[in-house]
């Protein structure tokens, strides 16, 4: 029974990580940026929601959070990433680190030492299914994530934006030659990534987590290994990676006493250990495309 319950917890956590990892992968595909500020976008969305839920009501506040994070992401792209578009990927990554330092410092300062609540209408309710007890928050997270990801995948496959985005990821120069506007594609990618991050933040701060604390950025950081495990350039990989990380974390927490020989708090480290093991076996991630170079 413990196994089934942990499986469900892991899948729901994984679904939320998949949301963050998905945004991460879209950014990498659209503008070759490894976005270290992604954790702060998650926190920003949750923070705006927490600040406004008494004014707009919960759903309005979630919308406000999503808009704020998406807007912040677009601003980052327009003002800071685009001017150095042609810089080496490392410089782009370090640029996002600079952004992360600024955003994170300010958000941590704003949140302070309190735990902020987001006013989830379902609160800490739990649902009993047979002998399984699971927070409603987690169930809604799974449902929402599945719907959002499905919509995204369909759009990615069939919408003109999705097609042009995939073309751009395939070959930037050719995409530009056939008249695709890479700038616009990048902006939309950042918009979506920011929105997904904020949405994930809403669920990551819900039950069984007490609320929004500065450590949310660290939790969101676990979506990084998710994206890497799946392969940074693979959308399907982000989903698989998210699920793997969610399951690993849930089972590590559930079987804590059996894992005690590894030291307390091993659950925080395991996602990263799994990532290293995957990278040793497949340096491009599970679903990533291998770059073949012949010399």
């Amino acid at each position, binding site marked *: 029974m413990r196994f089934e319950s942990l499986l469900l917890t892991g899948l729901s956590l994984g679904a939320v990580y998949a949301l963050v990892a998905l945004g991460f992968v879209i950014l990498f595909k659209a503008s070759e940026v*490894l976005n270290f500020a992604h954790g702060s976008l998650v926190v920003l969305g949750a923070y705006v929601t927490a600040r406004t839920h008494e004014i707009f009501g919960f759903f309005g506040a979630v919308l406000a959070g999503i808009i704020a994070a998406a807007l912040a992401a677009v601003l980052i792209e327009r003002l*800071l990433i685009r*001017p*150095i578009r042609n*810089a*080496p*990927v*490392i*410089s782009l*990554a*370090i*640029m996002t*680190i*600079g*952004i*992360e*330092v*600024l955003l994170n*410092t*300010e958000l941590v*300062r704003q949140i*302070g*030492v309190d735990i902020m609540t987001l006013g989830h209408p379902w609160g800490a309710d739990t649902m009993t299914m047979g002998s399984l007890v699971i927070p409603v928050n987690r169930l809604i997270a799974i449902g929402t994530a599945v719907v959002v990801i499905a919509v995204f995948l369909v759009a990615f496959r069939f919408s003109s934006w999705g097609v042009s985005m995939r073309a751009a990821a395939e070959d930037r120069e050719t995409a530009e030659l056939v008249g695709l506007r890479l700038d616009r594609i990048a902006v939309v990618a950042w918009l979506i990534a920011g929105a997904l991050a904020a949405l994930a933040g809403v669920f990551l701060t819900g039950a069984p987590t007490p609320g929004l604390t500065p450590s949310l950025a660290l939790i969101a950081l676990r979506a*990084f*290994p998710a994206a*890497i495990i799946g392969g*940074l350039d693979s959308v399907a990989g982000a989903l698989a990676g998210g699920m793997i990380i969610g399951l690993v974390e849930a089972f590590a927490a559930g079987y804590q006493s059996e894992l005690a020989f590894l*030291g*307390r*708090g*091993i659950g*925080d*480290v395991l996602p*990263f*250990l799994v*990532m*290293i093991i995957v*990278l*040793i076996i497949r*340096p*491009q*991630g599970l679903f990533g495309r291998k*770059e073949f*170079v012949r*010399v």
Partner: protein
Amino acid sequence: MSNSTLVRPRPATSTRGDRGPRLWQTGLLAVAAVVLLLVPIYLGTFWLQLGFSIFAVAVGAIGLNLLTGTTGQLSLAHPFFMAVGALTYVVLAGETSETSGGTVIGLGLPPLVGMVGAVFLSGVCGLAFSPVSGRLRGIYLGMASLALVFIGQHVLNTAVPLSGGFNGRPTPPFELFGLKFDYSDSPVVILGVPFGRLEWLWYLGLVLLAAAFLFARNLLRSRPGRAMKLVADSELAASVMGVPVMAYKGKVFFLSSIYAGLAGVMYALSIGSIAPQSFAMDLSMQFLAMIVIGGMGSVGGAVAGAAFVMSLPLVIQNFSAYIPFLSTDSGGITAAHLAKYIYGAAVIAVLLFKPSGLSGIWQSAVETYRRKTLSKQELVPSKEGN
């Protein structure tokens, strides 16, 4: 020089035959050396403490710059290797004792042995990571190396007999040929200044930093250095030219972890204790900020960047009374916040406006100076000057 027809007719910038600027540079270097040697005699403990911590992280920043700045491999693992170095040093050189976390083991070996052992073990850890570091491209390596930071945090927190756990354990003072780098009842007095822990540490840091600096600079000017730059520009081109790319990436990672190990020992000496939060992810970001602000790939830039990032919070703290909007309560902007804003903004500003960083600014200044003096000396730029 021999194929002068191929050289672009530019005013002399990097030729060695040019006597004036070289003399001028040597002079500047000599003055800097004398000033640095005299510092402990004239400056107080605050500046000595700050100076030694700058030396410590500067050694680390030089190592990271070889890896990230020159070879183009993003690494966030520097705090991990520093932690390995620091931990090894305290275990080898420390004594078995009681701390708040429990009993900690110490072998009580001479501190010099501890330092060498620490550097050695960080190198071994860097080598052990080479299956990953050799195979991954820049960005992937960045993420993989982040894993090491979390593993390091976990080990520091849980391996209580070695690390002292969450609260850490004290760093044993350094000692060389019977001279203890610590306060004593009968200190050596030089020019009326009693030499205690910070004064001796200053010279230790100066020597170690100079060694680290010279090694890195000579490496970059030699064949491996050129190969490293080529790996950063294009791995494909590098392998076409016969550079074993995988081996090079693994080796540079190894070298960088050695630098980090030494930096870790110095860092532990400067803080006086080791605790997990001293080696957290913040530090990875600070190191990247240092090499970006200083100028990617420049050895001197790494030192300048380290000085900037390290001294910022402490100097702001020290002069906080003069900064009007700073507050000390948790709601407002504290000195620590302000320092973070400034260095975050500095990273962004450098990448946007001057990607070559402080070293680039320095070089353009030198070039402007040279052009001015050249045009004064000879109205027509000499052709054989190239």
